[in-house]
């Protein structure tokens, strides 16, 4: 065999070998198998997403609930400075947010453990309460009673005062002194 034939033979052998290298055909039904597998995965993927979404939503809801609970003002009254005695007289039981904000903030755990000395905790009087006290102090009691009873103002009318005319009696020795 001469060199040229030898080279030609190996050239052709290489070409034929490379042409067959990837020339293998797939087994019949390749497309069907691909689609079946892809379809089989679809519902799983959808459910997977649904479950992931549901889990994420539940986690967020739980986190939100815990956040709200932790930030919510406690039903336990906060510590407040002692109120004035005048306030005790009124017996007011309203909460005053201004005072609460001024009070030292306690963490929920501390609030749960802290007992107020008096319930509800006393707080200083507001301007309206001070004016009310002044009004009560200056107003006659019948007027107050009538105001409390919501009686009409006509019932409170007092008859005109009549002052009898003064009569001056002469003293027995007064004239005699004048003459002297």
């Amino acid at each position, binding site marked *: *065999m001469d060199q040229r034939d030898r080279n030609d033979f190996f050239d052709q052998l290489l070409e034929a070998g490379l042409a*067959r290298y*990837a020339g*293998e055909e797939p087994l019949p039904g*390749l497309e069907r198998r*691909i689609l079946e*597998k892809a*379809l089989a995965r679809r519902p799983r993927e959808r459910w997977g997403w649904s479950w992931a979404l549901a889990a994420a939503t539940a986690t967020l809801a739980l986190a939100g609930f815990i956040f709200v609970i932790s930030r919510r003002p406690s039903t336990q009254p906060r510590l407040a400075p002692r109120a004035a005695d005048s306030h005790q007289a009124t017996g007011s039981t309203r909460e005053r947010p201004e005072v609460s904000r001024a009070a030292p903030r306690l963490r929920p755990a501390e609030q749960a453990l802290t007992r107020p000395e008096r319930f509800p905790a006393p707080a200083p009087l507001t301007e309206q309460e001070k004016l009310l006290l002044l009004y009560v102090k200056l107003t006659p009691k019948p007027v107050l009673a009538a105001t409390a009873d919501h009686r009409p103002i006509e019932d409170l009318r007092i008859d005109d005062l009549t002052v009898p005319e003064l009569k001056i009696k002469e003293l027995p020795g007064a004239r005699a002194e004048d003459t002297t």
Partner: protein
Amino acid sequence: MAVPGQMALSEAMPKADAAAAEFEAAVREHARFVYKIAYAALRNHHDAEDAVQETFVRLFRHRHEWPEIRNPRAWLARTAWRVAADRKRRPPEISLDAAAQAVLVLRAQGAAPDEIAAKREVSALLAHLIQALPLDLRDAVTLSTVNDLSSPEIGELLGIPEGSVRERLWRARRILREKLMATIERKHGPEGS
């Protein structure tokens, strides 16, 4: 023309589902092409089909990005090549002497090169020689065996210019030819025969 299994699949996949219908069309159009790329890299029917499955599953998973895929064929080729590269296993050991003996016997019997190349031993020998090439040459020559892939497509797939593809193919073929000659004629060469 009806394709076997098409009716059953069409029933299972609602027509209203446009993405599923588009996916089915892509499978029918490109499955064999993708298979050849996978087979060229893996040299095994089972592994190649697994790689094809994986490639199309990835395509379906990325269905929201389909409008951005300008060339589905190139996208599939690239994905199949990567999937196959991840699954590549070491090729089985072959007996070079047995392969060389088979070639020489057939040649002595007057068989044409095409007939000789069809033999399993010769195919295994060629795969062995390709695997021994440097990586850049190996990838280029492996992809060139996929008849459906043009040089520009190979260049796009490998991220190199078309001229580089041609140059690598020329070098790879020269090396393969020399090694093929050396392997076959090493012990059973013209002098020995």
